[in-house]
Structure formats: C-alpha cells, structure tokens
C-alpha cells in the first residue's frame, strides 16, 4: 500500500498536538485555585498588573487561566458574553459554572480536533455556592477534558509538583489567610523564594459579599492578609529587596523554559521520523510528566501489536 509523502497517522497528529499544547502550558507559571471557609481563592504569580490571569465572569463565577494570553483572553471574553446574555435572557441565578464549563469544553475540544494548533491554555472555572457544598471548581485542559476538582486545583508550570504540595497542606474550611499561605507554599519550590507581593495576583469569590462575589485583593488589603500568615514578612521583604520586574520571575520562567525544551527533544525527533512510529512510542515520557488528560493512555502509541 502506498502512503502519500508526509503521511502521519491521526494518533501521531493528536499526540503531537497534545505535546505541543502541554509544552506551551508548562512554560508559564502555575496558578492555584482552592476553597477556603468563605469561598474560593485564586492565586497567580503574575508580574503584570494589567494582563490578568484571574478574572470575574459573573456574580458567582470566577475564571483563572494559564498558557497563551491571547488565547485564554478570548475564552474569557466569550465566557462573559455567554454569562451576560443568559443572565439577561433568564435570571441572574440561571447562570451556572457548569454551563460555562461545558461551553468552554465543547469549544476547546472542537478546536483541539479541528485546528492545526490546539489552544495552549488550561482554564479553571470556579463557582461559589451559598455553602461550601455548593462550591464547584472545574479544570479544563486544552483538549476539552473537564475535571471536577474537589477542594483545590493547580495548573500550568510544574503543575504536578504544585498540586502535590497543595494536597499535602490543604484542609477543608481554612480561613482566608491560611488558604493564602497554603497556596503560596504550594507555588514556591522547596527552598525557593516566594514571589514578592507586587507580583502576586490574588482574588476571591467570597460568598458573604452581596451581588457580585468576585473581589481582587490588592495593595494594602493583600499585604495585611499576608502579614497574618506566618511567612508574610518574607514575602514583603522580597518585594522590598527585588527591583520591580526583576530576577525571580524571569529566572523561574527561563528555568522551566529550558526544562520544557529538553523534554521536547525526544518527541520532536519522533515526529520528524514519523515512519518509525514504533520506536517513538517506546520512548519514555519526559521526566516532568504533564497532568493526565484525555488523549494520554487512550491513544494508540504504536506499541500495540494490533
């Protein structure tokens, strides 16, 4: 049987797309979303004050994303339009996080299968309920998979390591200051330096607020909160020492960049020699295994005799 030149199996194409997206997502810094006693806390190290990774979608719904800014910004704007039109058509209480997660999932999934390049984003849609039982955290990956997370979610950068640290320290019903402490600990590599206050993007969905539950914590309010946590002094100190927009952020970004590209060398080689898919299939996964997503495991990796 003759194959057209440059033929690649659908499995190979999907795998390449997934690898490509994972690499893009792992390049940035992590974002952490977790429940605390009065709602849901979002924490993202972010040197920019204007380009947000965390934002409000609707009264009870917040949004956090990692990956390419232009791509998740489009998702964010689409989500706001979806929420506002539905809230206006029916009632404000009829806009749910689940509906929004489904909209994102279907679009992410479609783009993943239909476009040459999948979106390099990972998104959390969080909804705060009247009680902590009503809270919901949905994590969506680039291929449209939805994960209904319980208590906390971490994504982007070294997501697995962050999630592990988060899992060790997370408790149900923590006060806000404790939750922030847990999030910052999870976001900091062991022995590493915490991001300075000026480079933190922090927001909450506070069920005790009236009307709109989403609130950004900035400036004095954030510093007060950090001082209530045990290591708050260290973070503030870091802010004072570091010139704005300097080393720690860029250093971390560069490091993860390097690890990403070294991990990629195996898979990019395999896609080049697409004829010998058997050998590429047996290649060990990169050391920093990306978070489990849909295609992983399900797809034919060439090792099957069938």
């Amino acid at each position, binding site marked *: 049987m003759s194959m057209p030149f440059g033929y690649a199996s659908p499995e190979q194409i999907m795998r390449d797309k997934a690898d490509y997206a994972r690499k893009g997502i792992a390049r940035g810094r992590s974002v952490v979303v977790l429940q605390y006693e009065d709602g849901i806390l979002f924490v993202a190290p972010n040197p920019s004050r*204007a380009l*947000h990774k965390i*934002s*409000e*979608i609707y009264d009870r719904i917040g949004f956090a994303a990692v990956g390419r800014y232009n791509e998740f910004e*489009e*998702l964010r*704007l*689409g989500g*706001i*339009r*979806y929420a*506002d*039109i539905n*809230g*206006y*058509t029916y009632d404000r209480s009829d806009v749910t996080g689940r509906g929004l997660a489904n*909209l994102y999932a*279907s*679009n992410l999934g*479609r*783009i993943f299968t239909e476009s040459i390049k999948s979106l390099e984003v990972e998104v959390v849609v969080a909804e705060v309920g009247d009680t902590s039982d009503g809270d919901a955290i949905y994590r969506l990956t680039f291929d449209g998979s939805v994960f209904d997370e319980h208590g906390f979610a971490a994504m982007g950068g070294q997501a697995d390591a962050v999630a592990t640290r988060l899992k060790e320290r997370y408790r149900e019903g923590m006060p806000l200051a404790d939750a922030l402490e847990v999030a910052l600990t999870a976001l900091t590599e062991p022995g590493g330096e915490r991001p300075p206050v000026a480079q933190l993007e922090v927001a909450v969905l506070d069920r005790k607020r009236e*009307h*709109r539950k989403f609130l950004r914590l900035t400036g004095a309010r954030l510093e007060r909160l950090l001082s209530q946590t045990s290591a708050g002094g260290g973070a503030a100190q870091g802010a004072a020492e570091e010139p704005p927009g300097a080393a720690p952020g860029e250093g971390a970004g560069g490091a993860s960049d390097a690890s990403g590209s070294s991990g990629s060398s195996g898979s990019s080689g395999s896609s080049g020699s697409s004829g010998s898919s058997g050998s590429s299939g047996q290649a060990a996964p990169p050391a920093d295994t990306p978070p489990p997503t849909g295609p992983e495991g399900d797809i034919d990796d060439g090792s099957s005799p069938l």
Partner: protein
Amino acid sequence: MASHRDLPAGLVNQLFHNTGSSSFTEFVAAYAPELLPQRDKVLATPIGDQVPHATTIVAATFAGGVVMAGDRRATSGNIISQRDVEKVFRADDYSCMGIAGTASTGIEMARLYRVELEHYEKMEGRTLSVAGKANRLATMIRGNLGMAMQGLVVVPLFAAYDPDRDEGRIFSYDVAGGPYERDRFDAIGSGSIFARGALKKLYRDGASADDMVMTLIQALYDAADDDSATGGPDVTRKIWPIVSVIDADGYRRLTEEQVAGYVEQMLQQRLISPDGPIAPLR
C-alpha cells in the same frame, strides 16, 4: 434584524467573538435583538394609561456622596396598581437609577443597564467613567423614543459617586435622551414638581448623609401630599420609601428598619406641623 439564537451559542460560530465593542447592548442587538426593549414596532393605539406607571423619584447630593429615594406606588390611570413597587435600582457598585413612567419598560431598562455597566467592566477591566455611564443611559432612552411617542414613556434619574471628584453627581433625562447634569438635587415623575419645591427649601450644602436622607423623606411626603399618583409611607402595611446611599464605600440600600426610623421621626413632626419643617425666611 433576525435573531441569531437558532445558532448554537458558542465561540465557534463567531458570535461570541470580537464585536469590536464592550457594549452589552450592542452585543444583544446583534445576537438576540428581540431581547432588547422593543424600539421599532408601532402600537395601533397608545396604551399609556392602561399599563402601570411609576411615579416620584428624588435624589440629592451630600458631602462625599449622593442619596436617591423613591416612593412605592404604581398607578394605571386612577387605579393604584401596586403599593410596593420598587423603582430605585442599583446599577453598579457606585451608581443607581430611579425610573418614572411606564413601570415595565423602566424595569427592563434598569436590568439591561445593570448588565451593560457590568459587561463593560468585566470586558475592559475598568469601570466606566461617570460621564460614560450617564451617556450610555441616554442612548438607551433615545432608543425608546418611538415607544415613548405611543405612550410608553420612561424617564430615569441617574445618580453616581464620582471617585475622581469624591462627590455625588446627578443626571436627569427627557424622553429623547440627555443627559442633563443636575446641581445639588433633582426629582422626576408626577410628584416631582412638589418634591422639587420641598427640596429647594430643605436642601443644605455640605449636609451629612443622615440629614440628606431625612430631607428626601420629607420631599417625598410633600409630593405624596399633593400628587395622587405618589404614595406616602403606608403605616398600616409598613411600606416605606426605598432609599439608597452611594458614597466612597459604594452603594448601599437602607434597610426597612432604617427607613422606618426616619419615617417615624418625620411623621411625629408632621403631627404637630402637617406641612413639615419651615424654612427660615431670612
């Protein structure tokens, strides 16, 4: 324009993509125009008198903010159609609007306006300026002009706290739009003539929020005293005016108990002097 709602609501059909503007109204007009308060159909006969009308709204600035209050009556011709209608609406954290005229159109407009302000805020990551908010409302009123000519008149009063100036600002409108910025105080609705008269005598520059709430309660009582379409405080049913205060801390609506306190105080006074406080002659 045809509605696009038959298409699946998603990002892929491009409808949730760039509309080139952060205006919710423009987005709705493109996506589902039937959801907007109708603006192009013409009624066979004017029905102005048959649908409930909302009446008097008053607003006044105080040192560092603004207060808005509205009575609770809705009328259809000579019938009182509702005793506890709400006509003062929170627009966003730092602004509110009151409506006079056709109640249904006004409520719908208030709902749309709230989404309009919030939509911009979420899309752009900043709140509209106070002038920007006032202008958006003017566009909505102008869009309703056709219906206003058929009797479905709605005229809002807009009040906001301006963080740049640290003061409250009031804007009024007519059926064709506006806005007209008002100094110190304004009133709209059928009882507005009487309320404005009262406010003229009772308004004090640099008064506290507490004093200004009392001033508005007095003005509403004077309006209800002389205008049949304006409802006074309903002591037997415990229905009090709606009072909203906006200052640097944001919008807050006074609770029933708080308003009841002001009303009681005023009624005690009026038992002695039915026409209310007497302004000094010199």
